[in-house]
């Protein structure tokens, strides 16, 4: 049975818009439209979409702090808004923009308080904290007040706070935002390990598509409140990202090459970028065709970036 079930969920907000000097009109805005999906236990699912697509609204409904206007939601067998406090013990939530740690206190004291709030047995807490300290390298700033932490340190602290009580599901909003490359890698490895070793279900929203590629077995893409893609990353790429790019370095500068089934998209001195459909033409065929026209020095094939893939999906959606 899926751990998260969402059936025909909609959320409408009433917004007041000024109309002339005194009058105001009330407008119903649909933030989420007929959303249906289910998430299996122990999966890592990416939830992506442009700003205002309805991602946070969905996460708020799943965690019980927003009531859906229509539809049915079940999380860990509970109805979030009706059983919010019971659900709270089973989930961990990290909002990228919010500080959940106690601002004035050393990091470790927030963790200790959370142990009491979530009623984690002392030895279990000690064991978990030890693991987090090791994986996320918390030791250098464990006794620093939260207000003095750098963004990267604070995010690692928040992540620990969200997961210290062994939640069944974690909702992570932008867990790698503002982190440097090494810290991002550390956080990703940490999430993979928690998922693999403990069967934690992860739903993460992100703008960083590398997160999606490295972590997620499945992606949900939301646009203007509607679910426009639900599937794995490879088929996302093959469906929307068939176009690959062959980058060739020629012996000499040449005018853009003319090739069947491919087109030159960029020229810089002797280097040319040739876009082609990976399903119809192979890179080897294309390389042969290029070599027949001009002597080749070097070449690489660029895979489609998931950024481009997602951008194309957004662009394809009718207004």
């Amino acid at each position, binding site marked *: 049975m899926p751990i998260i079930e969402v059936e025909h969920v909609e*959320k409408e*907000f*009433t917004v007041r818009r000024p109309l002339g000097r005194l009058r105001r009109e009330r407008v119903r805005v649909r*933030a989420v439209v007929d959303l249906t999906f289910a998430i299996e236990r122990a999966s890592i699912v990416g939830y992506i979409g442009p700003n205002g697509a309805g991602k946070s*609204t969905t996460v*708020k409904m799943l*965690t*019980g*702090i*927003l*009531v859906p206007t229509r539809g049915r939601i079940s999380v860990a067998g509970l109805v979030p*808004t009706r059983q*919010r*406090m*019971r659900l*709270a*013990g089973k*989930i961990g*939530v990290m*909002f990228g923009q*919010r*500080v*959940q740690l*106690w601002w*004035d*206190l050393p990091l470790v*004291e927030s963790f*200790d*308080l959370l*142990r*009491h*709030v*979530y*009623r984690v047995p002392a030895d279990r807490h000690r064991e978990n904290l030890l693991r987090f300290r090791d994986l996320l390298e918390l030791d250098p700033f464990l006794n620093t*007040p939260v207000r003095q932490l750098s963004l990267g340190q604070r995010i690692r602290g928040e992540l620990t706070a969200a997961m210290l009580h062994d939640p069944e599901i974690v909702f992570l909003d932008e867990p790698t935002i503002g982190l440097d490359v090494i810290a991002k890698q550390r956080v990703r490895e940490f999430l993979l390990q928690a998922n693999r070793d403990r069967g934690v279900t992860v739903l993460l929203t992100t703008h960083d598509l590398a997160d999606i590629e490295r972590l997620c077995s499945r992606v949900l893409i939301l646009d203007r409140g509607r679910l426009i893609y639900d599937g794995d990353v490879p088929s996302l790429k093959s469906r929307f990202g068939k176009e690959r790019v062959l980058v060739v370095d020629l012996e000499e500068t040449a005018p853009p090459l003319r090739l069947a089934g491919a087109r030159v998209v960029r020229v810089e001195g002797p280097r040319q970028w040739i876009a082609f459909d990976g399903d119809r033409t192979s890179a080897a065929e294309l390389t042969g065709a290029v070599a027949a026209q001009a002597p080749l020095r070097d070449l690489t094939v660029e895979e489609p970036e998931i950024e481009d893939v997602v951008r194309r999906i957004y662009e394809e959606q009718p207004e």
Partner: protein
Amino acid sequence: MPLAESLSLDLAMARVGFGRYAAYPIASAAGIFTNVVFGLMRGSILLALFAQRERIGAYDASATLTYVWLTQGLLNVVAMWGWQDLAIRVRTGDIATDLIRPIHPLRAALAADYGRAAYQLLVRAVPPILVGIVIFRTSLPPSPVAWLAFAVSLTLAIAVSLGFRFVYNVAAFWTTDHRGAMILALVVMSVFSGFTIPIQFFPPWLAAIASATPFPSMIQTPVDVWIGALSGSSLVGALVAQLAWAAALLGLSYGLFARGTRRLVIQGG
């Protein structure tokens, strides 16, 4: 939840409340200095009243001095100058993170407030009270029973005060600017609690109005217990009134918070 677990959670919450204030020792030192200076001013102004007469109600000059230095100490314990942690969390939307914890925000606030009050009592209240005792020969509770009654009364005063503060903070669910409500609340509280002058100095009609409000339960009652103006059945009555106000205001806080939350979860933050 078993009682021991429950208590240890409240204690942990209280430790956090204590620690948050202990994190700023320089602010505390500046606050103590201000409290003592104002104590000197309030003492000399109120003593002028006794140039013409021996006593006002239960207060003679010596009891009035005790009142001044005690209230200078207790004003921070009952957060006389306001508290807006909750309102700010509502305004910024951080309240969402409180709602996804398996602890009710009112209970968390009450437990943390006892920690805050414990810090204020030790660090902010003891120095002005000591200044009063050492320099102005102000009096102490007359008996061990009076000490005990004072401790009970102060404990209840903190709950009454938190209940009241929680109510005006909850206003932030409905208004974008909670500060208007807070300032009005603070003016009323500082007068009717008996902080500005003892309620016994009020004209009778105003004293009657004050006694019908929860505010004397925050300051006047613990002070009257300390100086021995309340004893026997009047003492018991005053403590019961405090308990009743604490229950009423915390109950109101609970109800208003539930309504505010419902509004938030239906209409969004």
